């Protein structure tokens, strides 16, 4: 059994003027993972076939575990704890992109398309985290990458089967992708100060290259699958998830997700 990997940042690891932006950068990915993990876990017992029920639940659990590890990592930089960060923030303090928050209305094509678009984005972000100058974050991200590749393969495999499937399967996948194209592009909205974090080497890569790679990858899978997606230009005047401007759905989701936590915020689990 592989040993658990956990990493925590020390406040001295990051220059004071970069600390908040670094925390936001990590939280953006962690919040994405928590929200999509929460949404996907709703499918437990309801996925279209038994084996997929097991697989999708397992992957949702991974997402929440990844989020938890990233919260543990940044907690010392915020003077808070992972649980408090996960469950005790106001909606404006979450940095998730709203694609991860939207209800899927129990439409399997929507759930799967979202998982496909987000999983491929998360791989690329984890790859950038994996080349962080912060050795702890890099090691943690390398370990998460191994699991994230399982997620992308799983989602791509389903897309490749449903796209060329029956006319109904194809049509439902295509309409889910049409609806998700704009929210998916909003994954690439940077958090405030992200440029400085990148310039300091605290995460590797660059934002535009990440978008290009993501777009090429998903277009490749989709065109193999008889599907397409029209990606709009990211309009940061209308998109604000990474900066705390969310759809009201996030507050509803938090009310539900945090119900148990809020009943006793200081309980030891």
């Amino acid at each position, binding site marked *: *059994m*592989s*040993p*658990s*990997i956990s990493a925590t940042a020390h406040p001295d690891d990051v220059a004071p003027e970069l600390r908040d932006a670094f925390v936001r950068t990590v939280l953006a990915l962690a919040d994405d993972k928590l929200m999509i993990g929460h949404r996907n876990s*709703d499918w437990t017992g*309801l996925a*279209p*076939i*038994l*084996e*997929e029920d*097991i*697989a999708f639940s*397992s*992957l949702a*659990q*991974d997402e929440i*575990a990844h989020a*938890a*590890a990233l919260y543990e990592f940044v907690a010392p930089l915020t003077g808070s704890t992972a649980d408090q960060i996960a469950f005790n923030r106001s909606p404006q303090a979450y940095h998730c992109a709203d694609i991860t928050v939207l*209800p899927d209305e*129990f439409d*399997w094509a929507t759930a799967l398309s979202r998982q496909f678009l987000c999983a491929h984005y998360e791989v690329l972000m984890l790859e950038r985290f994996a080349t962080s100058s912060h050795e702890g974050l890099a090691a943690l991200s390398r*370990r*998460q990458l*191994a*699991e994230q590749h*399982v997620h992308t*393969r*799983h989602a791509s*495999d389903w897309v490749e*089967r*449903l796209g060329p*499937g*029956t006319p*109904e*399967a194809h049509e*439902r996948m295509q309409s889910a992708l049409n609806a998700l194209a704009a929210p998916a592009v909003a994954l690439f909205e940077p958090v405030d100060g992200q440029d400085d974090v990148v310039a300091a080497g605290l995460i590797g890569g660059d934002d535009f290259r990440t978008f290009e790679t993501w777009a090429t990858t998903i277009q490749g899978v989709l065109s193999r699958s008889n599907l397409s997606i029209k990606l709009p230009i990211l309009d940061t005047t209308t998109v604000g998830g990474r900066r705390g401007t969310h759809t009201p759905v996030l507050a*509803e989701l938090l*009310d*539900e997700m945090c119900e148990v936590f809020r009943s006793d915020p200081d309980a030891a689990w």
Partner: protein
Amino acid sequence: MARMLSEPASFSGFDKRTTNNGQRPMSKTRQNLPHYTDDIPFEPLGDGNPYVIFTQLKDGAAYRLAGYLDATDHEMAIVLAKEHYGQDQPCTSIWAIPRTVVAGNSDEFPTSSDAGTMRAWQVFTQAVAGDQPVSSMTVEATCSADAVDAATSQIDGAEQLHRIWVVPADAIIATEPGEMIWRYTDQLYRMARGYSKSVREKWDAIRADRDITEYEKDDLKETF
């Protein structure tokens, strides 16, 4: 495959108005779940193909029968087997085998005497009923009946075995080396030993509490 997924049977015959049944649902999202009003259909659904899944727990060890699953094709069989059987316990490798190619000396997997080309067959043996079939040798034969015969003649005490299965070696779909990963979070609760460990700890705590109470009773008796 796609028919099953695009028309999920669990979503037909639902009536959204009859939710909840007066019970407190587990999740607000699930309050909007449709609720069955018709009988659940009995017919098997979908066009998945059955696969037999074997797992290997240590490099070089035999593969043991883990169970069965339905999948649309070979690649999905491996993808789904990794999540289903690969997460029960750490595995080094998984084999998925189309159920239709398994043959043996039992009614559920009949052998065939139709001779084809000479090929390698992977042999699985089950010592007694209830044991897991495990991989053993490979034999060369032109049909599954001959492969079972060849295995029977080469295995010491073959007549004592409950069952012998043979599978064309080239029909085995295997994970790539290094493909199996054990999740880095604590998955112990998924395993029977993880569960019994935590239950035992709780029982020990309860017993210890009771012993202390008994001890205190005696103690008080002596004192007063």
